């Protein structure tokens, strides 16, 4: 069984490696003769990554700073994400379930939704101050619409047949929501959470570019100011990896919760 899985995975993971390896090679080819050029070669990035992680000790201002930056960003990402979910989930369930709430809020949300988080940033800096709180709130805003809209969609797309089945089995009106609507909507809810958390890692960089001293966004911005492109790229890679791991975690959770669903389980 294990051997079979391995054999089946091998060709596809091979393909997954070949293309980025080729890109890396081209990058190296173009840069390895100019270690002091505008774009540093990939091996230098790897060394810089190890240095920011504290494994080498170049003793510059970025040495060993990675973990604090990562921790700060992760706490803002998860703080903002949880805050957003705490608001968007109940609101989405309400909007999806109750026409009166839908009528009341729909137009407003449609107008607010296209405003990008970058446009909100100056206002957030005024509202929440220059610092960590603004970044967290910006993340919360960034997660909000994906979670909200997918929750509404999940609630609104319950198979009508299941309402009939529940009704003929004698379910009470009050139990309909927890017993039929909520489990039916759970795949949509998980899609929203997953998209929201992915977006949180995008927004965090925007949020940390001004007004905070620690965080991956701040690290990238500080490195840019002193023309340390190697640190900029190292920071980007860390954000990519953190976002990826975050997504894997939420996917593992959804596979567990949605194991009944042929699309997820």
């Amino acid at each position: 069984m294990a051997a079979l899985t391995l054999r089946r995975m091998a060709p596809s993971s091979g393909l997954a490696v070949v293309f980025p390896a080729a890109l890396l090679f081209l990058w190296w080819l173009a840069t390895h003769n100019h270690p002091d050029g505008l774009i540093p070669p990939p091996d230098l990035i790897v060394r810089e990554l190890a240095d920011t992680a504290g494994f080498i000790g170049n003793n510059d201002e970025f040495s060993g700073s990675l973990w604090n930056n990562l921790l700060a960003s992760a706490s803002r990402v998860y703080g903002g994400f949880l805050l957003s979910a705490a608001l968007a989930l109940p609101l989405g369930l309400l909007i999806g379930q109750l026409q009166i709430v839908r009528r009341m809020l729909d137009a407003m949300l449609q107008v607010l939704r296209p405003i990008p988080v970058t446009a909100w940033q100056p206002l957030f800096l005024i509202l929440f101050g220059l610092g960590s709180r603004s970044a967290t709130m910006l993340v919360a805003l960034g997660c909000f619409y994906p979670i909200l809209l997918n929750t509404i969609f999940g609630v609104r797309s319950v198979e009508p047949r299941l309402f009939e089945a529940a009704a003929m089995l004698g379910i009470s009106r009050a139990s309909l929501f927890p017993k039929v609507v909520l489990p039916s909507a759970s795949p949509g809810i998980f899609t929203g959470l997953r998209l929201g958390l992915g977006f949180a890692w995008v927004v965090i960089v925007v949020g940390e570019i001004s007004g905070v001293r620690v965080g991956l966004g701040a690290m990238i911005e500080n490195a840019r100011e002193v023309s340390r492109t190697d640190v900029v790229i190292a920071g980007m890679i860390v954000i990519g990896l953190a976002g990826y791991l975050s997504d894997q975690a939420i996917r593992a959770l959804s596979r567990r919760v949605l194991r009944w669903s042929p699309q997820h389980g």
Partner: protein
Amino acid sequence: MAELVVERPIARPRPARSDPPILRIAGVNKRFVTAGGEIEALRAVNLEIGRGEFVCLIGPSGCGKSTLLRMIAGFETPSEGEVLMNGARVTGPGPDRGMVFQDYGLFPWLTVRRNIGFGPAARGIPKTQVAEIVARFVAMIGLDRFADAYPHQLSGGMKQRVAIARVLANDAAVILMDEPFGALDAMTRERLQSELLTLWEATGLTVLFVTHAIEEAIILADRVIVMSPGPGRITEDVRIDLTRPRDVVSAEFNEMRAHVSALLQGSH
């Protein structure tokens, strides 16, 4: 695939003529308003179903057979007339009338066990008792090995067994079946037909079964109600007095098939 196990197949007492009908459809008309105008789905339908009868509704599409079934289930309300269950007017769906859908209508997030226990649990029966009921019906449909499987892991025939067990576990007095075997392959279909008959004979249930397959209707039913479209109405009430299990190649069976077939031809 698992076999149906019924512990004591007892002879089913035939309902006496004087027994009041379990279901009475009285002067029912049904019109739907659609974008293209009004559609007359049923006109002047009168029908009585005796307790313990197995009745098939047959007719071409558009004859209103499913609408009639859904009205008895309480999913639709008549435009005029009324549906009476044990003398009381039907105003909505209820556990006394269990419905079996062609597309199963199982809750995909619940295991076989919990799908069957859904009705009893929803009606507030204590947990230990629900577990007993569920165990009995899981065994009855022969799905013990699949009791903790989810619907998407089951074959169509297994899903339909679960759907049937779910309404039986909920103490339905009447089961309403809307082309329940229509999506199954021929072999599974035949097996489920015979299982359904075994079950019906053992329990004294009343079954109302919508189909468009003549042979299926004659294999199963005490009475075949022939319907025709435009507007949907009952054109004939055919009693099938052949002994069960019915032999589909016998002369009597073929006579019956020809008779119902002619009625359906004439109804267009």
